């Protein structure tokens, strides 16, 4: 299933792209991100792990991002979160009169029974909420409080 969420940020695409591209900033901007480690980055290909706080305890995913300044970041989690066999997506950045429209898209496939109670639609709703929250936190960091 594919879902997407959009936010408009009052800053130009290079600035907004830069915040999403730099994983060190994720730890400062998103409170549930506990740790980030970058294993490889050559300017385009990036391999990383990210540990996030979840109700059941910390979860660590491992993934790859492809950096296409200042228009797109593409993500694939080669070690997806528990209960998923696939988690891929993009952030796309488009200029809108000096502001930036950020569209985050995610494609996921459930695996096993971990999310059986939610089902695909229920999990999509949870993921949409998380995406919306994260985009709003990035907007806040970029527009107001300078944590970026």
């Amino acid at each position, binding site marked *: 299933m594919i879902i997407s969420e959009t936010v408009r940020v009052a800053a130009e695409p290079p600035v907004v792209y830069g915040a999403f591209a730099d994983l060190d900033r994720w730890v400062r901007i998103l409170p549930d991100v506990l740790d980030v480690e970058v*294993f*490889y980055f*050559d300017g385009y*290909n990036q*391999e990383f792990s990210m540990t996030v706080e979840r109700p059941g305890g910390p979860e660590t995913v491992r993934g*790859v991002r492809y950096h296409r300044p200042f228009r797109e970041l593409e993500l*694939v989690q*080669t*070690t997806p979160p528990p209960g998923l066999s696939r988690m891929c997506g993009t952030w796309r950045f488009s200029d809108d009169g000096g502001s930036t429209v950020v569209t985050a898209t995610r494609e996921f496939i459930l695996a096993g029974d971990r999310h059986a109670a939610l089902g695909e639609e229920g999990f999509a709703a949870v993921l949409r909420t998380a995406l919306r929250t994260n985009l709003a936190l990035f907007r806040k960091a970029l527009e107001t409080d300078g944590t970026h």
Partner: protein
Amino acid sequence: MERIEVVRRIPAPAARVVGLLWDPVELQRAWDPISEVAVSYHDGRNQEFTMRVRRDGRIESVRTIRFRRGRTITFFTPLAPPMMAWHRGAWVVGADTDTDLSVVTAVREYELRADHPVAGEPAVFRAAFLARLGRILDRCADHLGVPGTPSTQGAGE
């Protein structure tokens, strides 16, 4: 950074050629120096695998992450061959629909470790790497049942 490029014409449909290059298990059957392949992630567009491969009599363990869009496969190796500080590249398969001929361009970018004993002289390593890429494509052509046709061998021209 070093950049090399090898081009081969392979008389087989582009879809078949890119299918072979995209499947590390079938590629192992085509390229004998690969002794082991373990695919750890595959979703049709993204792929991660580790292979054991022989180079100059030594076994290297290389972990590769690949991304496919159409007939272009790009990759990087977070665990690179031991004489390289980093290593990335692409297979680009062009199609000539009139003749059913494929034109495969293999691109590699890398940086040698200056202190690694196997790396040796950069120019020698570069020539050997070009030849090796050519052999890989020739063996792919053999595997597909046809001889490869040497085309150009560029070295960043």
